[in-house]
């Protein structure tokens, strides 16, 4: 094989694909060929790099230079300057928010610096469609070790010792689950990989599939060996076409090479694995529903116990593990439980992947050691809140989790501490909210989601979420009544207690946590008809301050509903009966003018605007007249 001097690690995760990375790829290939660099420069398609907010992106090796927001038209310059002449291109490098100097090297960018990559150890470093790339990074070495030198009981013992807990949300100790399944006398046994990732804003599991599918296969095979399973399923939602494609390629490669199937690596152990696609019902992430879905039945949960580890798919003992749990296993088996259990906190070991989204500067996928604080995640890795706005809360655990307010920003993240503050680890979605986010609206959003996704089997979940949604909708519409808060406080815990499966048991969490920390916002909505964050459309009005409006016509021209009246150098006014409250006028009004304001509550209700546009000069004269009258 000829030596290369440059490797271009082009991210082809779903985010970058949507951002047009294949156009970048084409441009790179053309330019590399045009300069005759194809023997010196290689182009590698990797899975998700993680810094999704910068996509399409690539990392240039061996120098480790990070380029983001690539555009096809910039590629000719980049190839000539950097890959031919060796001069890295500053203007394509990452510039931290509110800074001017770019940071050339990946390792120096704060987003990457604080991370610890165990599960995502191969992200951006391998081509997920090449088995050789995975092998080169010690791929299947853990499986080799397990199959040749450990008894299944020893594997389970090691996993228990490592402290690994389920990464799907509930945090049940993985080794304990395995023990229950192993002890069941009934055979055959099954192991299922749960990649039915449905939380809004979460894409950890998808990215693991897309960047390192063999790690999941290796982990699942280790799990199968430990519990004594000969067959397994990978359950993945069909909305993840790229993840499915790459996983299928990896499965085919593993089968062709004898890493799956009969007599793996000549050790006598056999394990077969196949993909089952789900149709994207949120409840299928719940393990008994997931089993029903694979069995071809309606995806509804059933009462537990018996737990799937005892009576699972086809009535047989079944272990269901999350993607991240499985992908952690090769590292644990290779480096040992003692090493792994040093990472993290007393009760939560290892690392966790989070998708950091919402009102945050650095959007992306991060892997951090357990015990890291929210502050480190939001301000160091995440680079803070855009436009220097105030951090208000973060929602962890998706629709099943809760909002953690800014007062808990120094909270170390682990399973227990998140539970204590009324949230949960969940699968790892982390939605950051700023001062403009209305907490009642947020809880309505999540209840809308879970209400939609409730399978309807048990009435507390089905009707309870209906009732919650009705009240929340009323409150955000400005029709909240006395007693609504008390009603929510009574109903939410009831839904939690009486629901059969995890969906219903956790769906009230967003309501409960926002009531716990932001009750004043609920009260303001109900009694003052005011949305303190000025987000609920029914409770706000846009207003043009005549003292500031120069009559530039910018808002008037941009208003999509024609609600603004005025002419050049006349004070504009908004016709409240026509205004749809889209906020476009506020967006376009230049910062140095800032004549457009949002009002809520009393100031909105008692708002008096001019009847018709008048010349700005006339307004000024009128004001001057008024002030003279006052001083006299």
């Amino acid at each position, binding site marked *: 094989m000829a030596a290369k001097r440059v490797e271009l690690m082009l991210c082809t995760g779903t985010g970058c694909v949507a951002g047009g990375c294949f156009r970048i790829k084409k441009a790179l290939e053309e330019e590399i060929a045009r300069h005759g660099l194809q023997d010196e420069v290689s182009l590698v398609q990797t899975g998700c790099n993680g810094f999704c907010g910068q996509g399409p992106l690539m990392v240039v090796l061996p120098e480790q230079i990070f380029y983001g927001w690539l555009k096809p038209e910039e590629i000719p310059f980049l190839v000539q300057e950097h890959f*031919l002449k060796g001069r890295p291109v500053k203007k394509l490098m990452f510039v931290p928010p509110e800074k001017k100097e770019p940071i050339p090297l990946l390792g120096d960018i704060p987003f990457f610096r604080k991370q610890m990559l165990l599960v995502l150890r191969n992200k951006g470093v391998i081509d997920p469609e090449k088995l050789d790339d995975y092998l080169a990074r010690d791929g299947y070495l853990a499986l*080799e070790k397990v199959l040749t030198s450990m008894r299944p009981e020893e594997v389970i013992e090691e996993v228990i010792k490592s402290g690994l807990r389920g990464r799907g949300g509930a945090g049940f100790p993985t080794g304990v689950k395995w023990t229950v399944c192993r002890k069941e006398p009934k055979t055959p046994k099954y192991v299922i990989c749960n990649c039915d990732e449905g939380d809004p804003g979460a894409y950890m599991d998808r990215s693991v599939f897309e960047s390192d599918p063999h790690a999941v296969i290796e982990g699942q095979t280790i799990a199968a060996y430990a519990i004594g399973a000969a067959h397994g399923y990978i359950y993945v939602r069909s909305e993840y076409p790229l993840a499915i494609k790459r996983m299928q390629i990896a499965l085919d490669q593993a089968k062709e090479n004898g890493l799956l199937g009969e007599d793996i690596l000549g050790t006598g152990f056999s394990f077969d694995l196949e993909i089952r696609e789900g149709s994207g019902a949120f409840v299928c992430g719940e393990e008994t529903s997931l089993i029903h879905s694979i069995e071809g039945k309606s995806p509804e949960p059933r009462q537990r116990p018996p737990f799937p580890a005892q009576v699972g798919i086809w009535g047989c003992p079944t272990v269901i593990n999350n993607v991240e749990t499985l992908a952690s296993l090769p590292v644990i088996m290779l480096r040992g439980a003692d090493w792994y259990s040093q990472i993290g906190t007393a009760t939560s070991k290892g690392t966790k992947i989070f998708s950091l989204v919402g009102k945050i500067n650095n959007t992306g996928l991060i892997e951090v050691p357990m015990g890291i604080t929210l502050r480190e995640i939001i301000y160091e890795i995440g680079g803070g809140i855009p436009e220097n706005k105030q951090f208000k809360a973060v929602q962890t655990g998706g629709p099943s989790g809760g909002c953690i307010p800014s007062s808990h920003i120094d909270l170390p993240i682990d399973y227990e501490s998140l539970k204590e503050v009324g949230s949960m680890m969940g699968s790892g979605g982390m939605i950051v909210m700023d001062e403009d986010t209305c907490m009642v609206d947020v809880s309505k959003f999540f209840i809308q989601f879970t209400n939609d996704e409730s399978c309807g089997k048990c009435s507390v979940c089905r009707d309870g979420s209906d009732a919650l949604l009705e009240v929340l909708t009323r409150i955000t519409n400005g029709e909240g009544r006395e007693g609504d808060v008390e009603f929510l406080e009574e109903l939410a815990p009831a839904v939690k207690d009486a629901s059969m499966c995890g969906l219903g048991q956790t769906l009230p969490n967003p309501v409960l946590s926002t009531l716990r920390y932001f009750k004043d916002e609920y009260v303001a909505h109900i009694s003052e008809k005011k949305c303190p964050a000025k987000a609920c459309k029914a409770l706000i009005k846009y207003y043009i301050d005549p003292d500031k409006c120069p009559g530039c016509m910018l808002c008037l021209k941009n208003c999509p509903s024609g609600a603004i009246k005025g002419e050049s150098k006349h004070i504009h006014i908004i016709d409240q009966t026509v205004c749809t409250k889209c906020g476009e006028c506020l967006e376009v009004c230049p910062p140095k003018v800032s004549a457009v304001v949002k009002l809520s509550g009393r100031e909105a209700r008692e708002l008096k605007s001019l009847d018709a546009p008048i010349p700005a000069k006339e307004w000024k004269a009128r004001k001057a007249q008024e002030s003279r009258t006052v001083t006299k």
Partner: protein
Amino acid sequence: MAKLTLDDLRKKRDEAQKGIYLREGEFRGKIIVHMGTCGIAAGARAIVAAFLDEVAKSGLNDIMVTTSGCAGLCSKEPMATVEILNSPPVRYGELTPEKARKIFKEHILGGMATVEYALGIGSERGA
């Protein structure tokens, strides 16, 4: 494809590791070929090719070949700088592919700078 045995897997893994050495980020030595317009015009591309060929033939996975801009001494192009960990960089000038191969053998493999082609030792001082 035939199913792998444990031995096959180990061999395949070792072989694969050679293919991704640029990604591991640990290098003992670095060969920088100066590729300003002057360097390219004087034949720097052939120098890069010669070095890369030698790296491949040697099987070493801790040597990086890279490029940089004009070094300022355009009349001596093509030029290259060889940096070995813990020793001062050596700059070579008026290279040909043959000279490059010789430098690779003596300096990279042998550990002794090829004095006859060297322009100097060390880098310019920064301001």
